[in-house]
């Protein structure tokens, strides 16, 4: 599943990083603890979180993640947006909770 298919299927908001929408999603990771993501997330995964500050994009970039999803209608900080755009990693938004979003993605990826 491409990031763009994921966006379309769940009507996700694309805050920034449109350049990366054609990337293929290989998995997902759920955590709000940054060192946990740093230690355990893998390349091309979608990271679902409620953290909105720019270190989220720094980590997404360092780990080569496919996209970041902010849950529960949360909005990114301005520098988070800028960083997403710069790196070309999609920063997405949804009204779903983490549980709901992760459940849907898990089923879609048939993991």
């Amino acid at each position: 599943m491409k990031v763009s298919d994921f966006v379309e299927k769940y009507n996700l908001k694309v805050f920034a990083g449109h350049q990366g929408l054609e990337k293929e999603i290989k998995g997902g990771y759920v955590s709000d603890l940054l060192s946990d993501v740093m230690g355990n997330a893998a390349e091309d995964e979608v990271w679902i979180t409620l953290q909105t500050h720019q270190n989220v994009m720094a980590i997404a970039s360092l780990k080569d993640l496919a996209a970041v999803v902010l849950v529960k209608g949360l909005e990114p900080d301005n520098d988070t947006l800028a960083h997403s755009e710069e790196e070309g990693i999609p920063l997405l938004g949804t009204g779903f909770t983490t549980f709901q979003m992760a459940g849907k993605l898990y089923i879609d990826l048939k993991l």
Partner: protein
Amino acid sequence: MVFYIAGGDFSNAGKASSQIKKALKQLNVNAKSIKQIVVAVYEAEVNVAAHAWEGKVTALIGENDIQVIVSDRGPGIEDIQQAMQPGFSTASKEVREMGFGAGMGLSNIEKNTNEMNIESQVGEGTTLKFRCFYS
């Protein structure tokens, strides 16, 4: 390569790891080693921002390995063994709210490096050194 980090400045934490990642890619270092090195450098940078007053990252990029030295002026670490325990953290409430302070940083560094050493003087600062061989 040398990078400066100010205590409390989380917006700059990640610059050194990002630049080092680019440099290693240019040298065609294998992707797995780059991934591990980047995790270790990032965690070290964030520790300076989260726990110290100011510090610097020095990276010595060699043909077969990289050595990184992160030295800071700061409160130092009283009990290094305890600090290394996964889950141990003295991070402030503000830092925890950002999602840091899980107490996983130092163990992430240990897991992703071949050699790691911490020296610290309470009230003065900490020097963390690590080395990774490109596999």
